[in-house]
């Protein structure tokens, strides 16, 4: 009975806001991790980010927030059209978190070993 309920839950659609902002988080977290690698490997990108607010990390956070909010609001509007199930959304969120974490940790670990 419980297994049947859980299976039904996994196939259910989630609300438009949760779907929109969940997908927005997935995309933003991976883009943020890639930006970490880009800015660490390119002095021009690092300095460009620093020039905008005075500190590269502040600009990075601001960009993340803008992408997350804009994508979230846009995707929420079409959330019902996306028809994402709970399982897909949860796997996307967990997968993006693990992937982004591995990119960031892996990059700094590699840089530390090389230095």
């Amino acid at each position, binding site marked *: 009975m419980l297994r049947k309920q859980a299976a039904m839950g996994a196939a259910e659609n989630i609300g438009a806001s949760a779907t929109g902002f969940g997908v927005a988080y997935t995309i933003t977290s991976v883009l943020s991790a890639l930006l970490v690698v880009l800015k660490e490997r390119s002095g021009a990108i690092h300095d460009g980010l620093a020039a905008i607010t005075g500190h590269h990390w*502040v600009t990075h956070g601001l960009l993340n927030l803008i992408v997350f909010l804009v994508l979230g609001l846009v995707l929420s509007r079409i959330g019902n059209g996306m028809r994402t199930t709970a399982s897909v959304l949860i796997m996307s969120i967990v997968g993006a978190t693990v992937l982004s974490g591995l990119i960031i940790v892996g990059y700094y670990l590699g840089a530390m070993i090389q230095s």
Partner: protein
Amino acid sequence: MSKELILMLHPTFGVLTIIFSVWVFVESLNASDANYARIRGASILVAVLMWLTYIVGGYWYVVFYYGDKAIIKAGPWPFAHSFFMEAKEHVFLMLLLLATFLPIAAYGDVLKKQSTRKLVLWTSALVVLMSLAMEGAGAFISMGVKVALLAKQI
């Protein structure tokens, strides 16, 4: 306010975020009419506390950290900055968005939709695990300063 006090507020808000995230997780496991409001209220507190952690820690990092950074890099544990601080400051940006997403998920139909409840459970669990990793990284950074100052005295 002294800069040391500002620094201590950062992990304090972080720990409170962990406690409230665990609260959201446990309440969601047993979601009912009786605790529906508490799930939503606690999820908002998670987001607010995470933003306070970010603002206080971010202010300290941008304004005061350069001194500690120089001490750590000159000490026996330079990896406390080059690995732990660098990774922490960037993973935290994801954690901030995830904590912001938690109340958005919790304001769905947690009672009737099993799917929404599962989403809240996974999101709150991720916030707890990532926040614990942040606290651990913060401990390494503090220890990086400590061992550097101790090495100077010897």
